[in-house]
């Protein structure tokens, strides 16, 4: 029997339409829009001005503070303007708009595709390189990697877990990466292991990606300390705490971090980005995005530069079908519908999913009958119905007592609710409000 996390979880239809479609490199767009806040933490500060010419890989916005990340130019061209634009989150934020003139890279970046397995940089140099190259967690949460790699004194890490689960339906970008760039990913994992000073790394992959498991298992023989752990298919296995429980059986206590159980988790795409940064000195300016949906004529996995408008991706996938109701940034479970399809791709955009008008509409909401299906499927052991009902009525003390801050916003509760209640909407409201209340209490 394959391993998985024990509590809750759901099995949504997988719909991995693009699993057998090789990654296609998309031509450069005419204009790229690079937002300054593509990560969790303080937004980066633009260091270029209107009219400047930049080369690909050149820094255009510098990290501000410790929990922040550098942003680099994905293309060579001229800075057209620095203005607020609507990003994939639906809010406006400062962005550097670059008129593309070509693909000329900055000095010191190795663009060759030859595999380089020998890691020459030291521990500190690897972390410094991650910071320099603006590497963030590419699974979607976009947490700056250098922060995760820097282990505070008193904490110890003995296991690195690599997230190759890709439990979101539809998405296949990590799957293709593991198939096509297996050795690069494993080299990246080795670099991460060196930086963390651990001798063991486990790559967790769900068994619906049998070819990726096989590929990496064969390749891992050439790397010391890396093992592949096949996992049973269950959503949300890609959640950090769920993955740790599934892979090594350790449970991260409420309100604690993986490091408290001596584990660090990184995504496979992050491992690849680390490989490029460490071995090729290449900053994070491109990523693989799955563009999929049942109405698309040419869905696929595309390698695109950060800042490319989502509309260009849809165009490459065969154009937007007329009956499209929603364009979701990310997977269907945790993704967010775009309010503007010209929003630019960011470091965290793992997929773009198009839904038909008929399937995208939310069903009519009926009263909660206390069937507690949501409680059964909650992977964090919370009571979603209670949290949602309390948040709706403004009873935030109850929401806080219900451990809303543990919610990973996976959406299993809303998915499973037979009354079609918008549970996650209210839980998110409750979570953000409770977090604000806690912050205010702590500053007092």
């Amino acid at each position, binding site marked *: 029997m394959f391993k998985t996390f024990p509590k809750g979880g759901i099995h949504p239809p997988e719909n991995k339409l693009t699993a057998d479609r090789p990654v296609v490199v998309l031509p450069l767009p005419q204009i790229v829009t690079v937002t300054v806040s593509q990560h969790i933490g303080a937004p980066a500060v633009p260091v270029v001005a209107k009219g400047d010419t930049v080369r690909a890989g050149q820094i255009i916005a510098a990290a501000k503070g410790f929990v922040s990340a550098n942003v680099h130019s994905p293309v060579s061209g001229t800075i057209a303007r620095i203005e*607020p634009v*609507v990003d994939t*989150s*639906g*809010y*406006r934020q400062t962005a550097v708009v670059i008129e593309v003139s070509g693909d000329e890279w900055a000095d010191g970046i190795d663009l060759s595709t030859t595999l380089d397995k020998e890691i020459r940089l030291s521990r500190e140099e690897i972390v410094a390189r991650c910071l320099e190259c603006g590497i963030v967690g590419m699974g979607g949460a976009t947490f700056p990697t250098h922060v995760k790699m820097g282990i505070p004194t008193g904490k110890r890490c003995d296991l690195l877990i690599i997230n190759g689960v890709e439990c979101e339906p539809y998405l296949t970008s990590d799957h293709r990466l593991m198939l096509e760039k297996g050795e690069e990913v494993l080299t990246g994992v080795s670099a991460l292991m060196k930086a963390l000073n651990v001798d063991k790394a486990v790559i967790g992959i769900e068994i619906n990606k049998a070819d990726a498991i096989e590929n990496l298992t064969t390749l891992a023989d050439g790397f010391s300390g890396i093992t592949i752990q096949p996992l049973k298919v269950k959503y949300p296995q890609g959640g950090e705490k769920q993955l740790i429980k599934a892979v090594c059986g350790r449970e991260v206590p409420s309100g604690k971090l993986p490091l408290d159980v001596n584990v660090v988790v990184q995504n496979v795409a992050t491992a690849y980005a680390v490989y490029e940064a460490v071995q090729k000195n290449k900053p994070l300016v491109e990523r693989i995005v799955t563009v999929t949906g049942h109405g698309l004529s040419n869905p696929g996995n595309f390698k695109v530069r950060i800042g490319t408008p989502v509309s260009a991706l849809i165009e490459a996938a065969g154009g937007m079908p007329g009956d499209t109701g929603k364009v979701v940034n990310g997977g269907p479970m945790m993704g*967010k*519908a775009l*309010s*503007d399809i010209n929003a630019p791709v960011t470091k965290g955009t793992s997929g773009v999913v198009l839904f038909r008008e008929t399937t995208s*509409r*939310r069903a009519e909401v009926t009263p909660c009958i206390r069937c507690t299906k949501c409680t059964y499927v909650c992977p964090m052991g919370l009571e979603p119905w209670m949290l949602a009902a309390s948040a*709706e009525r403004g009873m935030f003390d109850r929401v806080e007592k219900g451990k809303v801050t543990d919610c990973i916003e996976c959406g299993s509760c809303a998915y499973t609710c037979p009354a079609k209640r*918008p549970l996650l*909407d*209210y839980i*998110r*409201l409750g979570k*953000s409000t409770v977090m604000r209340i806690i912050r205010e209490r702590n500053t007092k």
Partner: protein
Amino acid sequence: MSSTILTTIIMLSLLGLVSAVILYVIAQKFKVIEDPRIDQVTELLPGANCGGCGFTGCRALAEAMVKADSFEGLYCPVGGADALGKIAVVLDRKPIIMEPKIAVLRCNGTPENCTRLTNYDGASNCRVAHSLYGGTTACFYGCLGCGDCVEACRFDAMYMDPVTKLPVISDEKCVACGACVKACPRNIIELRKKMHKDKKIYVSCVNKDKGALSRKACTVSCIGCGKCVKVCQYEAITLNDNLAFIDSFKCKMCRKCAPECPTGAILEIGFAVKEKKVIPEAEVRE
């Protein structure tokens, strides 16, 4: 036979007497002395328990009023000057004069003025919508139209207009308790000074974007040009973050600012029609 009845009567009478004595002693010992004026003041308050005064209910305000030495900071917006006058007589204290206020919606983003770009089908709740994204229009400041304010109103003074998709505040019913102001996640509703015959003149926009952006989002937005500020003789208008604001306590209702506004963001309501065209929104509000 008769002795049984007699014994019963005597026993019960004795029991009653002893119980009465015990109850009397306890009542005397644990007597709570409460100022009778609290009850009197509570009677004079409207009894809506709306929380507009900042206290949890009418009785809490009454207690605070009796306890305090003056009416400083203690005011019932619902009862207004009438109630305060009566309470002042009970408490034998000088009432303070408070200007009556009224809630005003500072957004005119009707579908006509402000094009809808997306559909929102999440939970019908402004706070949820506000925490999710910027809104269904290009305006990131305007009304979301889910009606949290209407739900918060305890005086039945608000309803959602199905045509304008904006809440409508009834001048007659609004008591300026401020519940809607607190409910709105975008701070669109403002408590303004109640003018004679419910006349109003205010900037019906809260968009803080630069002129070009806000104009693109909504045809009747404040673009922060500052023309109204220049024309105002009473220094009632201020311009902050590309947004003009008319202070209702300084405004003398001279109506010089409204014709200056290039976008028609300044609304005049309740006035006789001047040479300017009547804004459809004004009709709706009345």
